[in-house]
């Protein structure tokens, strides 16, 4: 049986630093720099079900045919998942977002709301 140090060692610090560096590097590579989003694309199971314009006064859209009923709200260039019947509520907790390239996700519903700017997506990963 291996015995472990009781307190964090410099090697642990090194491990943490490596992950922090990887995170920062990925952040600069992956993070969208496209400014304000114009439309929100709603996909379920990878298939597009709606395209919402973000500008203008508050509008709500209830996505049909989901296992857990879910409503998306758009207002003044931003979008949020207003309500969801899913057990985790992670999607609702994400709140408003308006950055092109960003996204809101409801995993139990397999739903993704992706925000797109005028130029469309910059890169598709994976």
């Amino acid at each position: 049986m291996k015995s472990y140090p009781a307190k964090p060692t410099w090697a642990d610090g090194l491990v943490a630093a490596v992950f922090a560096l990887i995170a920062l590097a990925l952040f600069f590579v992956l993070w969208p720099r496209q400014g304000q989003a114009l439309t929100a694309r709603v996909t379920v199971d990878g298939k597009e079900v709606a395209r919402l314009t973000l500008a203008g006064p508050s509008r709500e859209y209830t996505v049909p045919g989901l296992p857990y009923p879910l409503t998306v709200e758009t207002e003044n260039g931003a979008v949020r998942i207003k309500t969801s019947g899913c057990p985790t509520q992670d999607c609702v907790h994400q709140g408003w977002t308006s950055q092109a390239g960003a996204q809101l996700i409801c995993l139990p519903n397999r739903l993704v709301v992706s925000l797109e700017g005028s130029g469309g997506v910059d890169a598709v990963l994976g």
Partner: protein
Amino acid sequence: VNKTVKVLTRCAVLTAMALAISAAEALFPLTVLFPLPGLRLGLANLVTLFAIARLSRGEALAILVCRCFLGALVGGSLSALAFSLSGGLLSLGAMLLAQKLPRVSLYGVSVVGAAAHNTGQLIAAQAVLGTGTVWLYLPPLLLCSILTGAVTGLAATLLVRRVPPGL
């Protein structure tokens, strides 16, 4: 006591503990404080860390797989199983490698496990959602895993020191 019975009982008790910890953790979702999908404290990893440090690789794997299947049976769905298995197995593999590094304590092993768990979940998320854009969440999740991993590492260090040998 018969050795097989002892190992079986030990694994069963630890599996039950891991399930209970997961259930308790779900009552206090971290995502309320910090809205990042997939963010968890990952305290159930405590049991895996304990198994790696004090038991064997085989027992750690058995406990992990049983926990994933029972967890999905109790409260989840098929996609929940995909998430916990992909995250859990990648995490276990990474921790078994990290444990071989010189001078690394359970803190470091736990951070590696947390980071690998998040990566594994994103692999499942890409498969389930059918989009690669989920990888946008990797940088913030990795940063958070340094903190959540350290918390679990602290708990694991205490646990491994306090539980008497020969359990």
